[in-house]
């Protein structure tokens, strides 16, 4: 317990990258939680004339149908954070379970999982994600599902390689000698040792989940009802915002995506530095 607190202190306070990353994520989390208070308007309501340039009533102006862009932007943080957390967590659950089973049991189960992972990693994922999203229909949960389908192989490969070395440790052998079953060893004794690395990778893959969701929304494959940053960018593109010089409409949501993504990467790198034994040894 104390060592976990010490690790947290290192990641969040002493490591400057971790601190900045954590601050960025907290900033957007607060915006998402208090969106109802911060946003001046209901983002779905038509509150002004279309294509209003930024003024004191509408900080970022209004979109092509007269919704307040700043309010849309505030609520958009909820979608990005939701996708950024759920998609990698879902992938990590599938990947970790398969990785542990494959690594511990070995044999043809291992070969099966490794084969599936190799194939999945070799598939052209972005075109496939686009085509699956097109066929499944536009909904946020479909996007998360598709992201998880392509996210689990990375987790499975990483967990499996960890388990391969963990299962040879003395304490696992001791557990086996006392008659613990495979299931118990895998999930009581091995799982806790891979969790830190899994968490680091959840945070690291949040960035690509956020980027992919925004990209799909930008292409018009996102949930048309959910107000996401990608959706705002799409409306700006379809509504020829730049042609009319309304550059803030494009600039703000994209900057937010980049910032939040950077936050997750910085925090992820900081956690990984602490928990990945390979990285720790190579640091001089």
């Amino acid at each position, binding site marked *: 317990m104390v060592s976990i607190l010490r690790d947290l202190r290192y990641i969040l306070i002493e490591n400057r990258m971790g601190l900045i990353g954590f601050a960025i994520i907290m900033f957007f989390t607060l915006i998402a939680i208090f969106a109802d208070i911060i946003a001046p308007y209901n983002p779905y309501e038509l509150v002004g004339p279309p294509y209003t340039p930024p003024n004191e009533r509408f900080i970022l102006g209004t979109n092509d149908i007269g919704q307040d862009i700043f309010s849309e932007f505030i609520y958009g943080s909820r979608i990005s954070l939701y996708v950024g957390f759920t998609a990698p967590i879902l992938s990590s659950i599938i990947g970790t379970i398969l990785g542990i089973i494959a690594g511990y049991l070995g044999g043809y189960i291992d070969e099966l999982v490794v084969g599936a992972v190799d*194939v999945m990693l*070799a*598939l052209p994922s972005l075109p496939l994600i686009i085509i699956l999203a097109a066929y499944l229909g536009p909904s946020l949960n479909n996007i998360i599902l598709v992201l998880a389908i392509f996210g689990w192989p990375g987790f499975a490969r990483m967990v499996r390689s960890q388990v391969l070395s963990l299962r040879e440790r003395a304490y696992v052998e001791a557990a086996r000698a006392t008659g613990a079953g495979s299931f118990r060893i895998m999930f009581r004794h091995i799982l806790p040792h891979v969790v830190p690395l899994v968490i680091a990778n959840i945070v690291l893959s949040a960035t690509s989940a956020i980027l992919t969701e925004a990209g799909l929304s930008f292409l018009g494959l996102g949930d048309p009802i959910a107000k996401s940053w990608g959706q705002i960018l799409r409306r*700006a593109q379809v509504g020829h915002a730049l042609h009319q010089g309304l550059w803030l409409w494009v600039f703000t949501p994209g900057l937010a995506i980049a910032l939040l993504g950077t936050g*997750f990467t910085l925090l992820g790198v900081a956690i990984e530095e602490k928990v990945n034994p390979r990285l720790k040894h190579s640091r001089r």
Partner: protein
Amino acid sequence: MLAVFFIIIILNFILPRAMPGNPASILANEYNLPPETVKILVSLWKLDRPLHEQFVAYIESLFTGQWGYSYKYYPRTVYELVMERLPWTLLLQGVTSITVPAFGMLMGILAGWRRGTKYDVAVTISAIIVYAIPYYWLALMFQYVFGYQLRIFPIAHALTPGASYSNFLEYVADVLWHLTLPVLVVTLTAYASYTLVTRNSMVDILEEDFMFVARAKGLPERTLMKHALRNALLPPLTMLAIRLGHIVGGAVITETVFSYPGVGYLIYESIMFKDYPVLNAAFFMLSITVIVANFAADLLYAVVDPRIRYVRRG
């Protein structure tokens, strides 16, 4: 690799058949085709046959280019549409597949060589930020600055619409002029992962004993650099195989933002118009491109690293 190929073929077969309606009835509704024509189409595409016969017919048609008709551009065939677009995608992806790793590795080499300096820190941090930048966003901002404000680069298309060229050089110049912004944006947003990997591998190599000995012998910097590079570039080159697929896969978004008339933009258009036959064929071609690019990168890796030799397995 065969398995990947196989899965793409299977998906291409299953997905359209999981959708409501079949190509013949959709075409009939859209263009008021007479029932006799529909009957001919149904029997031509074997839509009335059991699934396994459909599958055989599908495989056959896949390799003979009989990909059916576009819903949107009927009566143009899918094959025509895709082949018309493919050269543009190959051009754009070919150029960025070189510029992205080249620029990324160069930044990484310089950062690793001067490890621990302010320059190193700046390169690493900017790579982390760049990694999170959505490139369609940077594309839009570049379009705003260079296209709408400064008016020095075109913001769309691969050629000036309606232009006529008096000689081949003019044509090439126009192509390159339209290519500049897309290549610039893709390079600036995709280089980051190469930089990080190259930098780390460079730092690792520089700490090796053989580098220490080389330095102690008093070898000139140039020679030291050569020793380091031969080893340090191997990890980013392995990554080439994985990332090439990503660059090519990004074609859909890149080409859409710039209305660049490649296969990626075709995919976007066919999604918007629910033009499923075109969607499938375009996806098939894009996937093939990715697989071939990966294979090429694998071969390149074997050439660069003498320790790797491909052995035929099973």
